[in-house]
């Protein structure tokens, strides 16, 4: 295989890894934000819940920022088109996301009504981004209306209502929210004590259950809905331009082709279910540490299930299927993919090492006294 094709495939996998890292780390914090008003009935309880992820939310959020940056660099045309086509929801996502850092830092620095306001901000900034995140996957699987002019400028062919009010996308959105609630609840159990522990436990169990049901419904839906497939062989080594080089058809059930060709891929949805059930059972058995890893595996299973059924499509176009974005035609140049791979190989182990160290240093249960004693706590 050509080096460029190898790099393209590596970066397609890394895209999945990034989206998974984002879902696991940010999703957990979002879950805590969504659950804040539920697990904490008093102000002190809410502060305990916030300080459980207090030292980590900022580092975790970088997965989100890195996701944006890496898609920008590795899949410039995908970044350029998807963020613009989904403008209205992207801006909503952004509005909800930017409340969160401010809410963490400001919430506990003034009086009661001030705090109550920020607690609502936590709910919005936890739930909305996770729904948008899942709904984006749903919309992409259904295909999006766009085409390009000869210069490479995209043009939108579909009203934003089409992807906002879309039952399949909503199922995906709620599923992603449920999974984040499961992970957030697990984290609260890990470092929280009663009564937070108990409330988080029931929320997490409910979240995992809903996620598993919606994952099953979504799977059946995908098997029957319109997918996209090449009608002529495509050169994976093609220059990365969506303007020429592909002929694509819309076919019902096309998203199952990869599973039919490579039955081993069924391991991915299986992993998703095992992860969700594992998370559920381990939380029921009050073992949140094991449950956390099961929840992370659930995300791996879910995201790679989507990736495996769509590969090599990334964002198909319903109005001009030949200009659908794929791994082959929306990716960066060989030179930049190579350099970024080098940086990723050097820095990812370092990131994992110091993030783990940070969690290790801050290990243990968070207590009310330790918060009121520390002038820096949230």
């Amino acid at each position, binding site marked *: 295989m050509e080096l460029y094709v190898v790099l393209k495939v590596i970066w397609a996998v890394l895209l999945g890894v990034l989206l998974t890292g984002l879902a696991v780390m940010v999703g957990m914090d979002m879950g805590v934000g969504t659950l804040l008003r539920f697990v904490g009935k008093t102000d002190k309880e809410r502060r305990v819940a916030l300080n459980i992820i207090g030292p980590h939310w900022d580092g975790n959020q970088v997965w989100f920022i890195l996701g944006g940056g890496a898609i920008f660099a590795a899949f410039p045309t995908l970044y350029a088109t998807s963020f613009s086509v989904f403008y209205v929801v992207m801006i909503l996502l952004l509005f909800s996301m930017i409340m969160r850092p401010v809410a963490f830092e400001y919430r506990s620095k003034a009086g009661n009504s001030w705090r109550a306001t920020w607690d609502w901000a936590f709910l919005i900034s936890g739930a909305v981004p996770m729904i948008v995140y899942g709904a984006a996957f749903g919309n992409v699987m259904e295909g999006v209306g766009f085409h390009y002019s000869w210069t490479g*400028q995209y043009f939108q062919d579909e009203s934003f209502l089409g992807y906002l009010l879309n039952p399949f996308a909503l199922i995906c959105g709620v599923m992603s929210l449920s999974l984040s609630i499961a992970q957030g609840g697990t984290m609260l159990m890990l470092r929280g004590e009663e009564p937070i522990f108990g409330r988080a436990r029931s929320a997490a169990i409910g979240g995992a259950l809903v996620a598993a049901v919606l994952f099953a419904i979504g799977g059946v839906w995908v098997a029957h809905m319109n997918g996209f497939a090449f009608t002529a062989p495509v050169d994976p080594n093609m220059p990365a331009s969506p303007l020429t080089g592909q002929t694509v058809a819309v076919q019902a059930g096309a998203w199952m082709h990869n599973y039919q060709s490579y039955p081993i891929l069924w391991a991915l949805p299986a992993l998703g279910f095992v992860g969700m059930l594992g998370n559920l059972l381990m939380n029921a058995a009050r073992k949140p540490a094991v449950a956390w890893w099961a929840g992370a595996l659930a995300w791996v299973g879910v995201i790679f299930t989507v990736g495996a059924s769509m590969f090599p499509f990334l964002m198909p176009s319903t109005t001009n299927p030949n200009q659908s974005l794929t791994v082959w035609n929306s990716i960066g140049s060989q030179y930049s993919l190579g350099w970024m791979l080098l940086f990723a190989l050097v820095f990812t182990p370092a990131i994992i090492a110091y993030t783990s160290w940070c969690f290790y240093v801050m290990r243990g249960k968070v207590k009310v006294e330790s918060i009121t004693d*520390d002038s820096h706590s949230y």
Partner: protein
Amino acid sequence: MSLIDPSVVELSRLQFALTALYHFIFVPLTLGMTFLIASMETVYVITGKEIYKEMTHFWAKLFGINFAIGVATGLTMEFEFGTNWSMYSHFVGDVFGTPLAIEGLMAFFMESTFIGLMFFGWDRLSRPAHLAVTWLTALGSNLSALWILIANGFMQNPQGASFDPDTMRMQFTSFLNLVFSQDAQAKFVHTSIAGFVTGALFVMGISSFYILTNRHKALAARSFRMAALFGVISSMAVVTLGDALGRLDYLVQPTKIAAIEGLWQDSNAHSSAAAAPWLVFALPDDAKQTNYAEIGVPYVLTPLITHSENTAVPGLISLEQQAGPRILNGIKALNALQQYGQDHDAAALATFKQYENDMGYGFLAQKNAPNQDLTQITPANQDAIVAQTEKDTIPNVFVTFWSFRIMMFLGFYFVILFAFASYYSLRNELEKHPLLLKAALWSIPLPVMACEFGWITAEAGRQPWSVYGWLPTFQSASSHPVGYMVFSLIGFALLYSAFIAAELYLMFKFARLGPQHHAEPSVGGTATMFGKPQLADKSWQ
């Protein structure tokens, strides 16, 4: 084919400018204060004196209030390229996105992970370990700035990439050229050190407030000393780097430097290039292409810009005329490129290659062509289109001229302020100079202003380009309906106003309150500029 709507481009520019300038209210303070706090903690670890730990805690608290909004509004920036500048992202994402991705991997992860430990790890880490964490946070925030400014340096002076007709975008060709571009280097140092000045003046100003009101004096006098020394060197360095950037603009962005200096005619239009005046004051008129009420200092302009005695600096009018042939070439280049895109014709490719370096000027002409279509340019309408496009090749002179001057005058003011502050602090005579202390206090917002005007100079001066010489801003924007832009602009305005109100409320509250563990009663009846300290207010605990 749908057309690019000029009002959408203008609204996208407005949104990007507002969100970027807003983001940059908080960034410089982060860049500077992290290093200043790290210095304080270093003194604590070396000397073991508790007062320095208290200083570290107190300034870190104010820093945290600021940092939160910096992070939040930074998210907007990462998204806005994709949401509002789709064509730009597609056209240069391969090279421009790379430093942004590396920024995440190398710098932002480091800064954000360690800042958690910096705030929460005091009781869980040994002193040297905590000090290391603080230093890594400081380093991380500045490395972050490094990669962002490498990306911006590419927009100012595109190095390390070339256009590829097969993918219709600029592709990355040299990592070293991108990273070691002169523009990126000078920009990074100038911006980072401008942050040092901002952080130093913030600490010095609030310390002055405590000295004036006779509170927290042990903390205030020490903080003042450190900040004054930190600031005096930084402010001198910032001016030096500003000069280096000006010279770079002269070499690679002639229209920007001419606009900065309000130079309509070539500098040798005077008796000689050497005699050309540097304008202290003028009212540039963009429509008439001339200045009113000029006050200049002769014999300064040429050595200042060219670092030589008698080299002529081209004026805006002749720069416009020089663009004419490039526009014609650019039209040929783009028409050939469109042809090549359709049939991969070798002759079309050869034509394109011949005029490739002027293709950006073809994009500029597209805006003025009938139906924004270059193929509809005929010998009959060609001259009018080229003449109109020539006018588009220079930036707005009034804005560039004055934003540069405000930044520069402020820069020199900081050097003087810090010099006096250092002198009197070293002699321990601060209390004899309340005027200096008041000046320091009231100057807290000025470095932020200088930073903002610096960015306006850099970005407004680069117009009409988003990537100098290659891609005009007009072509870079996403093709949104106006309604989308109204929706997002209103949302940003509401959210960002709420944020700044909350930030100022907390900042004033905690600055008035002072360090918590060392609360001294305030001297009754002292006139304070922030109102009365509220020591009874413990609601944050």
